[in-house]
């Protein structure tokens, strides 16, 4: 009987066991490449865990989410190291995008998971950290020519500061071209706030963010072409 690699990886994530998860990646890559592991092992495992996370959020722990992100980060690190060892160019396929915690928000976990899952999906991510004022978000957007901003906020009190990012997008004449993705516990529990605070979209978990960013990137391209 063939080994259920993906199932084992999900079990390690659910056990919040990063060491065991990495051991599975090592075993898997003995006869394959780490790049193949992204598609054939990590992606199905994260999709499985992401479904549990979205459907049974209360039954998934902070530690499980953290370990899922770290496993993705660890694998991407191995992929990049392997490419460099082979003298291949290390390049990302998608983006660039800019992410950060909104002003006065100091809860980095969700954002760090977002960064890990975006990078594992091939996005070039510029991570601005916690407590990021709107003008800093938009300065970076214009500097790297990003089309999507990801703003993370955990609580209602700080999520209100998404409004400032929306206003800054408008003030700089970037409406439509720059799409605003919002995420964090409060948006999951109160999805009506996405629109109320000026967001263009959200995802049920950080694991689902790559699909959201792709959707918003395409929307930016189509709106940009209309205005040109």
């Amino acid at each position: 009987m063939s080994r259920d690699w993906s199932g084992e990886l999900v079990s390690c994530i659910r056990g919040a066991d990063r060491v065991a998860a990495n051991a599975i990646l090592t075993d898997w890559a003995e006869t394959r490449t780490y790049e193949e592991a992204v598609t054939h092992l990590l992606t199905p495992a994260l999709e499985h865990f992401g479904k549990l996370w979205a459907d049974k959020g209360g039954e998934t722990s902070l530690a499980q989410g953290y370990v899922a992100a770290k496993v993705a980060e660890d694998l991407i690190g191995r992929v990049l190291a392997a490419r460099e060892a082979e003298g291949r160019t290390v390049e990302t396929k998608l983006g660039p995008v800019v992410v950060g915690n909104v002003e006065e928000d100091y809860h980095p976990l969700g954002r760090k998971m977002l960064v890990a899952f975006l990078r594992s999906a091939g996005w070039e991510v510029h991570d601005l950290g916690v407590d990021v004022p709107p003008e800093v978000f938009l300065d970076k957007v214009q500097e790297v020519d990003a089309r999507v901003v990801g703003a993370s906020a955990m609580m209602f009190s700080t999520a209100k500061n998404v409004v400032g990012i929306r206003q800054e997008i408008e003030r700089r004449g970037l409406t439509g071209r720059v799409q605003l993705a919002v995420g964090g516990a409060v948006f999951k529990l109160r999805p009506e706030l996405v629109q109320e605070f000026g967001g263009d979209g959200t995802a049920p978990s950080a694991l689902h963010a790559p699909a959201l960013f792709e959707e918003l990137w395409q929307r930016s391209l189509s709106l940009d072409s209309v205005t040109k």
Partner: protein
Amino acid sequence: MNPKPATQVCVACSIFRNEIERLQAEAKLDLPVRFLGSMLHMVPEKLEKRLQEVVEEERAKGHEIVLAYGDCCPNMTGIGSAEGVDRTQGFNCPEILLGGETYRKMRREGVFFLLPEWTLMWRKVFQGTLGLQGGTAQDFMKEMHTRLVYLDTELEPVPEKELAEISEYCGLPVERMKVSLEPLLASLMKAATRVPHE
């Protein structure tokens, strides 16, 4: 000081139990208080449901309500700004105890705050609810924070044994910081005098 009426009641997180009871004992706060368990914080939807129930119960008795809570559930702002209700200002309990400026400065420095009640049940919080075990706990805490700070309200002996355990478990240094009850009292009084009267 008595903010007002016997028709007011405070609904507070048990994280503040000792501190609020001291303020009552010193006659600085003249409000009856209902405490709800602080572990509700770990499941915000449950906290919100319980708070709404309690607020409705107290309203049915004709009481105005002062909430001693941070922004701990998705609709805390809505609950705390309803007619006849107001809330202590602050994102969370450390900010209510420290005041906004000190809290923000320390948070920017990467501080993780330990309050007396949760320090005593740290295993339940870290290992049970958050699921942080072994090396993952250290990886997580070191990635997110730079140090632990125990907020000592000087009502109980500093739980040195537990602080040492948490420090070892998280792989972070722990500091002790004496905290006055004045910011908490001021926040409660402000909320009590702000409650919109029907």
